[in-house]
Every structure is written in C-alpha cells, then in structure tokens.
C-alpha cells in the first residue's frame, strides 16, 4: 500500500552543492524544457507573419512577402544565428536526456543512469560544435 506523507519542497536549490548526477539531469531537463516551451510561443508568433503574406501572389513569387522578408531579416542577424546554436544545444540535450528518462521509467539501465547523463552531455556538446558551421553559413558579424 502506498503511504501519504509531506515530502516538503522537492527541489531545494539552496542545497545545489549536494546534488548528484541524477539531480543535475533533472534540473537541466527542466531548464531546457522551460526554454523550449518559451521558444514555441515565440516561434508561432514569428511564423504568424504567414497570415499577412498569404494571398499576395505577386509578393510571394518575388519573395518580397512579409513572411519571407521577416525570416530572412532575422536570419541575417549574427545574434539570431548564435541563439539558434543555443536552441539546438537545448533541444538536443532535452531529446537525449528525454530518451534516458524514458529508459529510466521503463526500468532499463538504472544502474547506469549517471553515466547516461554524462553521455547525454558529451553527445550534446559534440553535435552542437559540429553544427556551428552550418548554423553560421552566410552571415557576417
């Protein structure tokens, strides 16, 4: 039978020096999750320029519609490219650690849950670094 008791505050960030690998994984997952959902709202807002662009066939054909020019304008900014690299890092970590969490939930590889967290971090770093040239193509500082 399950037992009810007051667990108190589950994440006491004041005790961060005592956190284990699993706790850091939990915190990073939450932090990257906040960024991703925040980004989703921003993403839909930017893509909403398609509402103004739709129907203006001449502008669409000339690629001068508000959707194309807005996205093109943003992509011309070095800061945006840098933020995109950051977003990739955040998304890749959330995906890899998410796979790790699904495994943990299924009870697979529990004894290696700390190692799989470190592996998620290393793989995220490697994929992010390898993606930098692609993300910075055709933009000046």
């Amino acid at each position, binding site marked *: 039978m399950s037992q009810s008791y007051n*667990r108190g*505050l*589950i*994440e006491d960030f004041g005790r961060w020096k005592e956190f284990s690998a699993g706790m850091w994984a939990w915190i990073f997952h*939450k932090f990257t*999750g*906040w960024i*991703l*959902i925040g980004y*989703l*709202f921003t993403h*839909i807002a930017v*893509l*909403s320029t*398609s*509402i103004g*662009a*739709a129907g203006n066939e001449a502008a*669409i*054909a000339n*690629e001068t*519609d508000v*959707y*194309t020019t807005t*996205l*093109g304008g943003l*992509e*011309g900014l070095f800061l945006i490219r840098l933020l*995109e690299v950051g977003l*990739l890092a955040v*998304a890749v970590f959330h*995906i890899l650690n*998410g*796979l790790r*969490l*699904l495994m943990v*939930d299924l009870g697979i590889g529990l004894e290696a849950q700390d190692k799989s967290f470190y592996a998620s971090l290393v793989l995220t770093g490697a994929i992010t670094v390898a*993606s930098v040239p*692609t*993300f910075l*193509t*055709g*933009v000046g500082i």
Partner: protein
Amino acid sequence: MAERYSSFTPGGTGWFLQRVTAAFLVVVLAFHFFLLHFVNHAYEITFLGTQARMENIGYFLTMVLFLITATFHGVNGVYNALVNQGLEGTQKKVVLAVLVIASLALVAQGTYVALTMRGMI
C-alpha cells in the same frame, strides 16, 4: 522501492500522456531541426518553399500534431514543475486555468498559421 520525487501520479493519465508525447516528440523534433536547418537552411526559407512543404498532407498533419503534442508536453511540464515547487490551493487552480487558456490559444493560432501556409485560408 525508493521514494518517488515527482508530482506525476505513476500510472495516471498525465504521467502517461507526458511520456507518449515525449516518444513522439523525440522523433519529430529531431526531424524538424534536421529538415529546416540541415536539408533546407533556415536563411533560405521563403513562403513559396514553406507552402510547397505544407501542401503535402502528411507533412501538414505531422506539423499540426507536432504543435499539439509539443504544447501539451511543454505546458504540462511547466505545470508539474510549478507543483513540485510547492504551488497549491487557489494559486494552483489559477495557474492551471491560465496555462490551459494559453495552450488553447497557441494551438488555435498555430493551426491558423499552418492553414495559411497550406493556402487553405
């Protein structure tokens, strides 16, 4: 068994849906990033190109489902994170109501945007 430090009720609907959407999002988020940054580059995106992709019904439906599952997964995650931080009582109800309204608005706006990209509006 070790104590569970999660606000999700194990075996509950919220717990289950968070994991089902996670499994879907792992694949679709990776596909989305790959397609729009490595196959097509973000700086080359035009309305014409977006329209061509969205005219494929499979792609269109995948993107709408992506929006719905991502919104649910993200907002449900935020809600549970706040509950873990000690949110309760009236505050908890108000936060839930605000998050539900924000989610519905995001899905409605995103679906409208997807329809304009497909040339249906």
